């Protein structure tokens, strides 16, 4: 049985009947550089007031009070890259189970990829997600639209209309747009509407047939390798097109030092370029594959130790804007096969925070800068009003016990799929409570 439970599924969605006060918290708001002891007062799902003056005394009548015991209260995490497998592959994950996992992981907003079945390349698909999101109260769910029809890399989708329906950006998900002319047109067209284009950075022909990072380990295991330069090659091609078009370009799950360097230069040049990485790329390297462990098979593949360090350093330096879970649920049948045949990807919603906190605990990055990568920075890139602790902002918040040491226990996860490489890994830091629009959607055991 699960040791944690989600709460609040049957509460009314909109009106907050009682004001809620979270007191005695360490308030961290990366957007405003706030880091102080205090409280937050929530009314009608919105932050009414916050700061050291919010204590047990002087609260509105009838307010529900939660003492945070000095734990960190920060904006709810925004995970800008997840796959929830609905519609189409509900045996691996659903919007419901993914939302439970999100709430348990402190994630209050997430953006799904369009590689569902059917593919999200028309208005109806985007509106389906929007409707399911309204029905699911635990986390806010958004989606990206496909960049090209059927993710085939040929014809553009109706970007403007999909954006009006709520698509936050456009991407061909796990496919890189191979055709340079199509990518050029996509960037040019998106510029007219100011839309965000997200690329899976891998030169597809160079990576074709590859199962893991190219190098000594691939040679020993007899697995076809993907050269690390496949990543920077595609990014550099795209950067030329970004320079021509002036479009907004976001690189997903950056995994190599060379890619970081290219993005650093593009940012210095003033191009509208942002990027994210996922925890495996700064916490694991290719050695994790060991004796053909398919839970360590990702796309892009886990790289060598030098690249892993470069990614951690780039998060610390702020070259990497965001950390996304890249949550990729897969059933047992997709992973318990010979390595080259296994599906790529790992689940990440419930490990995003504790694994990322490793960068804080090993003193690579400050807590505020780390949380920024999962709160205000993705909110800015995606154009969302949440991701900050501020008067008038949506009361999406995560309460974190920074110091709590525990071992990751995949059996306790809410996600339908269990393909995590982190099972049994000791981590420090745990989500205590999660709030969406002022409603508590998750409380760890012992905090009720």
């Amino acid at each position, binding site marked *: 049985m699960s040791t944690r439970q989600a709460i609040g599924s049957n509460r009314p969605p909109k009106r907050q009947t009682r004001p809620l006060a979270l007191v005695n918290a360490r308030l961290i708001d990366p957007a405003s550089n706030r880091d102080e002891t205090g409280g937050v007062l929530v009314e009608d799902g919105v932050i009414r007031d916050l700061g050291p003056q919010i204590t047990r005394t002087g609260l509105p009548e009838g307010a529900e009070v939660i003492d945070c015991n000095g734990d960190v209260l920060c904006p709810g995490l925004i995970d800008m890259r997840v796959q929830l497998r609905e519609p189409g592959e509900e045996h691996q994950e659903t919007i419901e189970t993914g939302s439970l996992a999100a709430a348990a992981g402190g994630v209050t907003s997430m953006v799904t990829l369009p590689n569902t079945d059917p593919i999200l390349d028309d208005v109806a698909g985007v509106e389906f997600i929007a409707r399911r999101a309204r029905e699911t109260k635990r986390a806010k769910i958004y989606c990206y639209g496909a960049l090209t029809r059927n993710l085939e890399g040929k014809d553009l989708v109706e970007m403007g209309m999909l954006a009006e329906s709520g698509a936050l950006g456009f991407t061909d998900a796990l496919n890189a747009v191979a055709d340079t002319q199509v990518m050029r047109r996509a960037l040019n067209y998106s510029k007219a509407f100011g839309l965000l284009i997200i690329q899976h950075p891998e030169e597809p022909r160079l990576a074709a047939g590859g199962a893991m990072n190219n190098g000594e380990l*691939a*040679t*020993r295991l007899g*697995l076809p390798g993907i050269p690390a330069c496949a990543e920077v090659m595609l990014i550099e091609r795209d950067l030329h097109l970004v320079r021509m078009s002036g479009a907004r370009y976001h690189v997903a799950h950056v995994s190599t030092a060379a890619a970081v360097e290219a993005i650093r230069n593009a940012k210095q040049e003033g191009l509208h370029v942002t990027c994210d990485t996922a925890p495996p790329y700064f916490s694991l390297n290719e050695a994790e594959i060991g004796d053909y462990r398919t839970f360590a098979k990702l796309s892009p593949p886990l790289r060598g130790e030098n690249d892993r360090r470069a990614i951690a350093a780039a998060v610390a330096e702020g070259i990497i804007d965001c950390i996304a879970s890249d949550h990729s649920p897969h059933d047992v049948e997709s992973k318990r096969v010979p390595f080259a045949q296994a599906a790529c990807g790992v689940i990440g919603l419930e490990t995003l925070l504790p694994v990322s906190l490793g960068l804080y605990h090993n003193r690579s990055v400050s807590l505020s800068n780390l949380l920024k990568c999962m709160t205000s920075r993705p909110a800015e890139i995606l154009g969302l009003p949440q991701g900050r602790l501020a008067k008038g902002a949506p009361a999406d918040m995560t309460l974190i016990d920074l110091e709590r040491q525990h071992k990751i226990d995949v059996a306790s996860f809410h996600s339908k799929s269990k393909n995590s490489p982190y099972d049994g890994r000791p981590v420090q830091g745990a989500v205590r409570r999660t709030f969406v629009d002022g409603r508590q959607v998750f409380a760890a055991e012992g905090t009720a």
Partner: protein
Amino acid sequence: MSDPARKPAAFYPHRHLLGIEGLSADEITRLLDLSQSYAERPKDDHRARSLLSGRTVMNLFFENSTRTLTSFELAAKRLGADVINMAVSTSSIKKGETLLDTAMTLNAMGPDVLIVRHPESGAVSLLSQKVDGAVVNAGDGRHEHPTQALLDALTIRRRRGRIQGLIVAICGDVLHSRVARSNIHLLTKLGAKVRVIAPTTLLPSQIDKMGVEVFTDMRKGLKDADVVMMLRLQLERMQGAYVPSIREYFHFYGLDYDKLEIAKPDAIIMHPGPMNRGVEIDSELADDINRSVIREQVEMGVAVRMACLDALTRDLTGANT
């Protein structure tokens, strides 16, 4: 996979034979000594005949093979085992589940030894985690082919008396070759100086880190070699732009009398088969009984596989070394 701590005094302290990489030099030498003893026995040796009597050996081949399958079958029969051959067509295993489904089905029939060949690297190791009997890797993808390396080593030892200090040149499609990988592990563990010779497109990344010297010029690589081990060039590699043509490949990397001059005068020529005459090896040279030991390799294959089956089933039979 293996648990040396569990039975420290055993002749062969592993449950399976999945690769050479996990074996120690001592373990390899013991297997070679035992193989030699089988090579010396008459075919109808009665003691050997009863060794695996009542045991079931299953050949489970997910990839076409004639010689390896036959060799294992003969080895098991000479030890008195009941042998079942299962050829699983490659098309039906495209969906990977079938591999473990098949493994579990066969496991329920209680085979003592499963001999498995699979086109994917790591597939035999995966299967070995799901069965109760001993598993022998008869070749998995580009990864390992341990009995081939053992039979090659036995052949070298019989012809040269030792392995330590010999210069062994492995030539050809190293990139796609499990034979090359298993041989590199085995020969370097036993102290040979191993060279690989191939066009750069057929050399795996960072192969030098496996302890070999790398040559792209065959003439330089063959200098003073005691053993020249040729690898099969799969003709479909032409489509992948690995080499421009068979003519060019044979010109630079095919073994002929002219290039063989550069090796030691008594250097032996090996090939795991099946050969592409005129692609990687000159046809006449392949049949030259003074230089080519290809026939002996096939013969040693049976002895090595008898030794491996013997070693893996000793715990089952309760015999001691």
